[in-house]
């Protein structure tokens, strides 16, 4: 969708779906995502959360930054940009990726979709065109922003497969996790990928803006006990923490926006060593990451289960009750499905290891009076929530 020439009159741009969401909104609780108007909550947070976990959630993800990368050096360019070995990626597959600056600190994360030979789409949290262009020197590669040209809808939750199939999207029964495929919905060409940010069964659908409403209407026309709800960013925040997904710029500061020494984070420091391949050849930050890997890790963004039911909010982490502060909670949610306080916390390690005990000091209010509570925390090495139905192919029909 090319932006109409009056766009500057509005502080926030709208997506093809905005009108539909406005019609459904009962809270008028809006926020900005990449300068687009998106809901935080449309109707009710609990309803939206449970749509993801036990029904079918629909989220407008058009504001996600999207770049098309083509040219004879497209693969070589991406392999030099990203920390992961992309030579193993095939057409029709998607990969979770991160990229670093020269100092090996994270600039952003995202997903790479291989759409064809030397033809890729890179989706990212933050605007990256400048970094991509800067990285393109010496490569025969063409980089285009597609953010405004493609409407995207995330349909996620245990009933999402049944809903989309009922709506007429074909070919989902053979679509494995991290597959991407061109398919159709009636006459509409739709690109569908089995990807998402919820940790549940789910799909992302990519269409030309002029077909966006037809897709939306086809999904919402489905009748039955599928529990279909449009959701906002607040529900997404809950489910992504349950799934253990990180968000650059929120859980840690991104490298190219960091001024203070020591405030940026490397993939190792946020627990993403599995996406770094130091043996694949040169990439930006490799030298720094090799040096970092040679020494014991000094800090780690860690998944914590915090005891008790106090709202964790922004707590500090201690090795001993009333001891020295060694970390801080970056994001915390109450998980309704796990009945637990979940947090991602940035924690200093000692000789590469976590201390034997971890305590969170939680400051909370009771009727406008502040209280403090000390709660023990446990490190979780796996995603907090990862249901089996998430990865079954074909998915269970509901």
């Amino acid at each position, binding site marked *: 969708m090319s932006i109409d020439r009056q766009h500057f009159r509005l502080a926030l741009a709208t997506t093809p779906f905005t009108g539909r969401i406005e019609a459904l909104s009962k809270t008028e609780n809006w926020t900005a995502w990449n300068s687009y108007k998106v809901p935080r909550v449309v109707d009710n947070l609990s309803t939206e959360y449970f749509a993801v976990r036990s029904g079918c959630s629909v989220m407008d993800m058009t504001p996600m930054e999207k770049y098309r990368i083509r040219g004879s050096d497209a693969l070589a360019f991406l392999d030099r*940009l990203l920390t992961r070995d992309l030579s193993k990626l095939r057409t029709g597959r998607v990969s979770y990726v991160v990229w670093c600056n020269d100092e090996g600190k994270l600039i952003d994360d995202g997903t790479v979709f291989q759409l064809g030979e030397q033809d890729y789409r890179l989706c990212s949290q933050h605007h990256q065109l400048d970094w991509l262009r800067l990285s393109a020197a010496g*490569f025969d590669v063409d980089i285009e922003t597609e953010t405004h040209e493609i409407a995207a809808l995330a349909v996620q939750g245990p009933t999402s497969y049944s809903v989309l199939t009922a709506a007429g999207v074909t070919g989902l029964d053979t679509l494995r996790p991290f597959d991407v495929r061109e398919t159709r919905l009636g006459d509409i060409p739709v690109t569908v990928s089995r990807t998402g940010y919820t940790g549940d069964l789910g799909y992302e659908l990519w269409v030309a803006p002029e077909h966006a409403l037809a897709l939306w209407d086809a999904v919402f026309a489905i009748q039955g006990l599928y529990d279909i709800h449009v959701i906002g960013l607040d529900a997404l925040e809950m489910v992504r923490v349950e799934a253990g997904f990180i968000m650059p710029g929120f859980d840690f500061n991104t490298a190219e926006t960091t001024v203070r020494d020591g405030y940026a984070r490397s993939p190792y420091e946020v627990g993403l060593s599995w996406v770094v391949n130091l043996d694949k050849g040169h990439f930006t930050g490799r030298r720094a990451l090799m040096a970092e890997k040679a020494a014991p890790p000094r800090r780690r963004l860690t998944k914590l289960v915090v005891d008790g039911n106090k709202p964790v909010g922004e707590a500090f982490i201690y090795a001993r009750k009333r001891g020295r502060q060694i970390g801080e909670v970056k994001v915390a949610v109450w998980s309704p499905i796990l009945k637990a306080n979940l947090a991602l916390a940035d924690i200093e390690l000692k000789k590469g290891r976590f201390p034997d005990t971890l305590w969170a000091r939680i400051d909370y209010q009771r009727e406008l009076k502040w209280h403090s509570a000390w709660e023990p925390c446990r490190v979780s090495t796996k995603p907090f929530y990862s249901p089996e139905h998430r990865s079954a192919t074909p998915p269970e029909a509901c």
Partner: protein
Amino acid sequence: MTDTADVIIVGAGHNGLTCAAYLARAGMQVICLESAPQPGGLSAKRSFGEHYRLPGLAHWSYPLSPTLCRELELERFGYVPGKPADTVVLDRSAGPLTLGGNSVSGESLSRQDAAEYPRFRDQYLEFAKVLRPVLKNRPPRLKDSDSRDKRTLARLGWDLRFGLGRDKMGEFLRVAGMNIFDLLNDTFSDERLKAAIAVDAVMGNGMGPRTPGSVLTWLTRLAAELNGGPVLYDGGTSDIVAPLTQSAQSAGATIRCDARVERIVVENGRAGGVVLENGERLTAACIVSSADPRTTFLSLVGAPRLDAMFARRVAQIRGAGVVAKLHLGLDGLPAFDGVEASQPDRRFLIGPSMRYVERAFNPVKYGEYSDEPVLEITLPSVNNPDLAPAGQHVMSVNVAYIPYKLKAGWESGKTALFDTLIALLERYAPGLRSQIVAHECLTPADIEAGYLAGEGHWHHGELALHQSLMLRPVHGAAQYDTPVENLYLCGAGCHPGGDLTGLPGQNAAWRILETDVSR
């Protein structure tokens, strides 16, 4: 012919040779590869017309440092310090002005200026002395500095505060960031005198007298002058090439000419060899490049094998050459207005006032050049008659400011440039046009093509403040080692920069020797 060595040096200019000589003397097996048929780079001999030769594109220099001469035993290999050369500023109305060492003389020079000049020079030589420990060492790192970095910084601080004393330090700090235009207007009234100093401050750089930082570039030049004033070698600047070459060879270094390096082989972030234009592959534990940093990193290594931001920094180095070279074969000595015929072994300047120099500079920013450029003229055949047929002479002219990229394009623009230059010279040396037997005109683009110096820049990158010291050539490669393991820089693009000093080559060799290159 051997195809492996401890060290491969790319380029046998004076810095490559200096580095080769030092490393060979330290017992390393060194191969130095030169694309031209002879070593020397900008100091190599050159011929034009049928019968004329030039002793190097660079036509004068400051004497090499005594340390370099001693450590490389250059005198044993035939190095003869050149002859100090006076500078004569030509001015058709006020008459010529002659500068030599600490003295200045000329018609209509005021007594105040004549008296002030030696005092002024002494003061600025003293300032330059303060910079010397920094120039002769690798530039100190401010973050993660080692003991040697701290020593260099401490020495600079000590010399500033206690060497100069409080008042002079205050004056140094006042002027260091200034432009030379304002400084000289504060000090002198004679336009010719001011222009002569200003030209030395800016020559070779894309800056005019009014460009900020031009006092600092002048101080860097004065630091070289601590070894002695400008000299003209009998055989031209190529007089320093043969001793350096022999010094390197006698210590066991191999110097291969006609061997153009096409690519530095880098695998997994580590340099391990070079590929020549003819496809031959040589391997070494350590690769040292005296090519300019942009050529080294972007052409020989290639941006894809570097981190993105580092490659970006290198690509952004400011360094478009602004000096063209005019070579004339003449059937006799030119007669400069007002200059006695008995004094031809001088450095002549056409640039009678700082405003003239600034006006010559202005158009180059827009890809054009002035009708009245600044000319720096020598007659190398005066001291070396072999360069031209008997009774004839060669004239070597540095022409500032001529753009690397001419707006109209050099293919069609070169004849007009030649005509402009001859018309200008004719005004200062009437009858010169009829003396011309042969000529050659090299734009910065020609200098790039012939000498592989990026954008034809003498100094392989501007000597601007933001490209000096720990920022030369760029952050991340300022201590001669680079982000590519086992790849080092030793050319003029490194600290302390251009001119024929050998210091980048020397500093680089020291740096390589203090690192274990066999790892």
